[in-house]
């Protein structure tokens, strides 16, 4: 479990996160939704220690994250940011191999190779593994980065808008991979999402943010409701059940 206790982050005078407390349960997909600038990505970055915080604490399975050694932390929690521009020219396999760095320090052993194969298989990139990243389509590239995170084999996987710029087919593919990770390997996945319908269809738990605070959190049925969403996004919503899913209409 990840416990977040009254976390504060401010840039100058602006409070991006204002006393946020939250528990993220193990073995589930938790989605962060909310308008731009609500603090979702910032919270994700704070949990994964990419940026510092100005107050509060984050615990990973009861342990204060700031006290966990860098390498140890990288074996337990991984993060994938939305912008993944890399300056060096790498093949898919080379990128995925980087996921083993916390274990191998660059010298791959038999066990590492096994994890790399498994990650490629999970993301169906075996045929593309020797292609360079700049030769891939957006969806394949995103899958390659997810494969790296899978090879990293952490219990917790944090993803910042993994569906950004992807078409419907690739978005569904990626969400299915994530579901499989949770179901088969017992991973805990936290995603920042902009598409509410994707959040509704694939999450176990949804946390709605606005203006640096959590407006409401709960199961899909509790959050994907007209009143809640209108409050969060300040837009008119129509929510309907279609094939046992909650689908929003807001166009």
């Amino acid at each position: 479990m990840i416990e977040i206790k009254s976390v504060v982050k401010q840039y100058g005078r602006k409070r991006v996160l204002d006393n946020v407390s939250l528990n993220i349960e193990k073995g589930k997909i938790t989605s962060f939704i909310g308008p731009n600038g609500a603090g979702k990505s910032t919270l994700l970055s704070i949990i994964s220690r990419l940026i510092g915080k100005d107050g509060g604490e984050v615990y990973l399975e009861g342990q204060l994250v700031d006290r966990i050694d860098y390498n140890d932390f990288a074996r337990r929690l991984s993060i994938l940011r939305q912008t993944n521009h890399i300056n060096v020219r790498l093949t898919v396999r080379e990128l995925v191999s980087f996921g083993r760095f916390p274990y191998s320090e660059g010298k791959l052993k038999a066990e590492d190779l096994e994890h790399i194969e498994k990650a490629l298989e999970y993301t169906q990139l075996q045929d593309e593994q020797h292609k360079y990243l700049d030769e891939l389509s957006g969806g394949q590239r995103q899958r390659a980065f997810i494969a790296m995170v899978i090879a990293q084999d952490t219990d917790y996987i944090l993803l910042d808008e993994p569906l950004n710029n992807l078409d419907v087919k690739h978005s569904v593919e990626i969400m299915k991979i994530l579901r499989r990770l949770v179901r088969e390997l017992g991973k805990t996945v936290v995603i920042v999402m902009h598409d509410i319908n994707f959040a509704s269809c694939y999450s176990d738990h949804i946390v709605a943010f606005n203006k640096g605070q959590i407006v409401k959190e709960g199961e899909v049925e509790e959050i994907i409701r007209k009143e809640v969403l209108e409050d969060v996004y300040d837009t008119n919503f129509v929510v309907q059940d279609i094939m046992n899913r909650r689908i929003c209409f807001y166009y």
Partner: protein
Amino acid sequence: MKTKQKIYVLSIILLILLFLYLALGLNPVIWRYALSLRIPKTIALLLVAASIAFSSAVFQTLTNNRILTPSVLGLDSLYMLIQSFIVFVFGSGTLARLGENFNFIVSVAFMVGFSLLLFRFLFKREERNIFFLLLVGLVMGTFFQSLSTFMQVLIDPNEFLVIQNRMFASFNNMNTDILWLALLISFLAVLFALKDLRTLDVLSLGRENAINLGVNYDYMVKKFLIIISILISVSTALVGPITFLGLLVVNLAREILKTYKHNYLITGAILIGSIALTFGQLMAERIMNFSTPISIIINFIGGLYFIYLLLKESKI
């Protein structure tokens, strides 16, 4: 060709050039004397090439930029300022009397001290990133340059000649005592970095990916920046400003080796740097008859290559 084979080829080219440099024009009468001059120069060439290549390769990885060299930290300009200042205040006579040893130690101490101060000031606050450091380094470099120019125009033209001699890197009038000291310091600095070479591969993925993969990013950047500043300070104080060479050799190494692995990349850059300097020195000694300092040859070729790089990058 595999990366390893390319490295072997480069090594062979270097060995041939080194042999040529050492052996050309030797005869039974002067060989002892000639070698006593050429061997220290060769060692200095290799040391400078290795320092510049190593620090430029690491610096480009830290900044994630292929057209930067550590010269943006302003160390070259600081070196010129120190030289100008000594001549301006005490006169070139004092500079000669104090000896090269003293000058070397003072220059290295000031340059390393300056960089440590810069890093300390910059890393105190979290949100300042490495590009802020570059900006400050650039501003300070320009400031040092203006100060040196100011002093240079005020002094006696004869004194200015002494400074001018130091503006261009040269292997011809080097003191052997300093060479061993320089070798020792650089060796220790590199030793300190050796076990983290693989971390550089991860650092080239950028800050966020590096942290995600368990690298203590801030610590590593600080550590490598300190090593870079020591290496640059030592080689600049030894032969003069020559950091431009780094741009040339690291990019050539990237072009030729086409690898992201830093152990190959750095080895390749060091070999190419050594080849370039040995070849340059051969040209300067045999063809130009010592009339042109090697750094002019290097800067000429480096400049052309830099323009080529800019043109190529703008096309993409």
